[in-house]
């Protein structure tokens, strides 16, 4: 039996930091830098509710099993907050994805948000749906959703490839507010050009903290910051030791 001690230690430190920051969360309120994308989103959701327009959350084209599920899981947190804000409006939020399992999770998230507000009767199972089984068939289905559902806020929070740029562009053409991010660096570069409010890097995982989804989300960002500093220090130390010939 062999144990990856380094990996387990890093994981242990991450969990410890997460729990410490979560327990400190209420007493020691974190202050995060301003992210214009999430600031604009809050205002746009309020406006959409008042205008009787719809908010669309896209959870991407990644599968629920595999590393590409992480940004969609973060997207589900955003969907939960958006669903809570719009459940009592004329047009509650809709969510789409290219994965069957993710569509079920989206339905669960929407159903739970409605139930929490005591509005279970307003929940529609088709408000969380799968648009297509492949990335581009998904992108092809996006314009129909945006047009038929009268969408004015288009959030792309999931794993996308180049089809994410098309999905964002369809939103821009409808003059919706488009907030777009992906875990894929190339897709992020494309979305930087096509989305009005692009999410860069790990900003895609920060939605929960910026939309006040709970103390654990703020704690996550703080733990990430501590670990980021540790990783930077490790890279610098490694570079220095390698340059001096101490390590090969």
């Amino acid at each position, binding site marked *: 039996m062999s144990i990856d001690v380094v990996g387990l230690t890093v994981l242990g430190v991450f969990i410890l930091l997460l729990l410490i920051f979560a327990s400190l969360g209420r007493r020691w309120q974190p202050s995060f830098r301003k992210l214009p994308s999430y600031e604009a989103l809050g205002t746009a959701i309020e406006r959409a509710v008042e205008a009787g327009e719809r908010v669309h959350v896209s959870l991407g084209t990644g599968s629920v099993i595999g590393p590409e599920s992480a940004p969609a899981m*973060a997207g589900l947190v955003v969907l939960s907050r958006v669903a809570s804000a719009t459940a009592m409006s004329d047009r509650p939020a809709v969510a789409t994805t290219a994965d069957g399992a993710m569509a079920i999770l989206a339905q669960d998230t929407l159903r739970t948000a409605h139930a929490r507000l005591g509005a279970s009767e307003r929940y529609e199972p088709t408000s969380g749906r799968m648009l297509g089984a492949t990335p581009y068939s998904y992108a092809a289905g996006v314009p129909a959703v945006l*047009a038929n559902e009268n969408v004015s806020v288009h959030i792309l929070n999931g794993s996308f490839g180049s089809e994410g740029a098309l999905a964002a562009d369809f939103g821009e053409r409808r003059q919706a507010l488009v907030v777009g991010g992906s875990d894929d660096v190339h897709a992020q570069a494309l979305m930087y050009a096509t989305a009005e409010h692009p999410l860069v890097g790990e900003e895609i995982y920060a939605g929960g903290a910026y939309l006040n989804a709970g103390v654990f989300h703020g704690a996550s960002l703080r733990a990430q910051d501590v670990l980021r500093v540790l990783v930077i220090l490790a890279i610098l130390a490694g570079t220095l030791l390698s340059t001096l010939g101490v390590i090969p």
Partner: protein
Amino acid sequence: MKLGAWIVWTAVAMAIGGIVLAGYFVDLPELQELRLLFMRWAILLSAAALLLGILNLLAAHMHKVSQQEAGWPYSGLLIVILLGTLVLGLVFGPDNRVVLSLFEYIQLPVESTLMALLAVSLAVAGVRMVARRHDVYSLIFILTALLVLLGTAPWPFGGGGLTGYFGWLRNWLAQVWAAGAARGIVLGIALGAIATGLRILLGADRPYGD
């Protein structure tokens, strides 16, 4: 009863997630077997969920047709083609020439067209970005895109020494600046993904509902 239900879901998610995660760090044969077993279950459940997703898609479009909402003829077409492909696949099998032709001559060209459309969308988006976003980052983005295009695209009449200069500049931008920045971004994304996974493992996030 409702309280009991979410506790059970959370406990199952935490236990199975913990075992699968431990399997990546501890090389114990029994643990590895258990991890693979859970992964196989996940793949099977994911396939079943795909079927549910398709049924959900069908339900959404049947609702549109029955209510005669805007664009309902397209929904009708989708239902006919979806059911037609399903019947052909069930009758002839997925490897049959007829079924494969549907993908080869219909789906593949349509998806390729959309991919080609991306180039046009990006050009339009670039112009839109210049007109709308007046900040330093957008300026850097556009300038870099132009320099990379100049270093990649063929020059009329050979381009003289400019081809080599812009080619060198493109490589320098891509291999030094872009690669370095991309690695930094990937590190941040990895940390974010770990944090998201840990929140689910700790039961703080429950994407499976309450």
